[in-house]
């Protein structure tokens, strides 16, 4: 490749990366500022006076009828971890059934579920709310867990991974007299490390980032998850909103999923590719 076209390539990619990252950098910078330094023209990218005390203040101050951001964070963590664990267990179990057994209606069922994965959440929020209301689960954290512990997406991902496991492994175990559940648990499941990592990170991020659904089903602030708590911060009754604390809280909200994503970036990207249907 010619040098000039290589430079042009880097320039274009670099420009987009700036667009992508600048909001995060500005947020980080504002989170260390005094309130009067947050919104200034020209922008101070480096805080003129560093104020790291914004963080403990944003995290611990009980400004929401006695609850603090840390409380919301623990709720979010609970929901995301339980959903991920359930999803790993259930999706691999179901995915095994779809990948390794033949029965009538199997493919129709699978493609039906695959179609649901492409639906936006807002298009099912009213039906889903109606059933949760009927089950008397509103205002419970379980309402945030159960509908997402198994999804068309997670089933499909698990199936794609299990398809690659050779049938001879299972047949050999069958000859030795092992039951089907033992084969799944002792032979198939231990081979699913990469699938488990993918399911774990994708479900965790999905659950942690949920907003519309918790806003609809949760009514008492003690149950609120982090995105809900964060959105409350902007509705402060004070004339001057504490933008610096707001940005500190936002930074704290972005950090756990970001750290988790960086650790599991490969399984995550593999999962996105598998869902786009390009790696069978």
């Amino acid at each position: 490749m010619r040098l000039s076209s290589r430079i042009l390539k880097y320039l274009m990619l670099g420009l987009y990366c700036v667009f992508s990252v600048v909001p995060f950098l500005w947020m980080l910078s504002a989170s260390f500022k005094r309130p009067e330094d947050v919104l200034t023209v020209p922008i101070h990218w480096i805080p003129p006076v560093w104020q790291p005390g914004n963080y403990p203040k944003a995290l611990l101050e009980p400004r929401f009828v006695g609850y603090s951001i840390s409380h919301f964070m623990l709720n979010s963590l609970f929901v995301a971890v339980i959903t991920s664990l359930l999803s790993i267990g259930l999706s691999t179990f179901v995915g095994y059934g779809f990948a390794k057994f033949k029965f009538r209606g199997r493919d129709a069922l699978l493609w039906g579920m695959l179609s649901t994965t492409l639906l936006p959440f807002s298009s099912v929020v009213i039906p889903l709310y109606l059933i949760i209301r009927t089950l008397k689960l509103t205002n419970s954290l379980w309402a945030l867990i159960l509908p997402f512990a198994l999804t068309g997406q997670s089933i499909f991902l698990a199936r794609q991974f299990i398809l690659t496991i050779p049938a001879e492994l299972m047949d050999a175990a069958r000859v030795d007299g092992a039951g089907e559940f033992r084969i799944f648990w002792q032979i198939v499941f231990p081979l699913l490390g990469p699938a488990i990592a993918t399911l774990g990170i994708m479900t965790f991020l999905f659950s942690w980032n949920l907003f519309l659904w918790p806003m609809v089903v949760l009514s008492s602030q003690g149950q609120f998850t982090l995105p809900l708590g964060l959105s409350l911060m902007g509705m402060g009754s004070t004339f001057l909103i504490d933008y610096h604390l707001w940005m500190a809280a936002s930074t704290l909200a972005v950090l756990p999923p970001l750290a988790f994503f960086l650790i599991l970036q490969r399984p995550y990207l593999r999962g996105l590719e598998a869902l786009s249907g390009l790696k069978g």
Partner: protein
Amino acid sequence: MRRDRKYGLTFVSPAIIYFLLFWILPVLLAIYYSLTNWTVGHPATFIGPKNYIDLFTDPRFHQSVLASVKITVPALIGTCVLAFILALLLNDDRLRGRRLIMLLIILPFVTDWVATGLVWQLIFLPNVGVLSGIFARLGLRHWVALRWTSSRQLAPLAIAIFTIWKTTGLYTIIFLAGLKGIPAQQFEAARVDGANDWQTLFYITLPLMRPITVFVLVSAFVSIVGFFEPVFMLTGGGPADATRTLPIFLYENFFQFHKGGAASAAGILFLLLCLGFAVIAARLLQYTYYE
């Protein structure tokens, strides 16, 4: 075979329960309520398809379709065009720092709408916001006071920009996976025949990328038309009703105005629209699978 059927159904049974409980049953419930005059807190009586008929003459519904179009079209075009270009640029094994660039591009997608939405609120503030600061530095004085989220003309664009920022990374990854799937011999053959970069792009890359591009367009459309959060975070549907998109319309009617029956009818229509496109996208997916 009977053994296959027995164990297959056993393993799949949680999925069947899940599908019945969280898809079939809820949709049936919503269809039932859509045929009643139910308002939350009051008993429901059956009124037939009246809610659906009313919807077609409701100016607020028309307005929300219009608002959805105004935001979805620029957001969809921006996302897909940018994602495709970025994927073309990134599809080069000799490119240094490729991994890092990919991570930076996907960053907005893996973080949540609220935390990033708060930042974008402050970016779009007139006179004192980040964008104003950048315009001032660039000497674009008369752009400093633009009311991005509170003027009818700019608010849809502001939401589209936030959406493009948030979702381009996902589709870049998908396009990139598609590009990696093109056999290297195809490019080598073109080079041997003396094709330049542009000719390779137009005669090899673009035709081979057609199935995946159609899939991305359809699935990105469904996904973007259904976004609730970017509108909620930046404008809440305003100013007036300029950005009251279909998801916001549904949310307000059901959860704020408690018009259970009418909102369920609108919800069912919206679900059918999305389902139509989702099924098309899923079929395209199936196509790329067995090719």
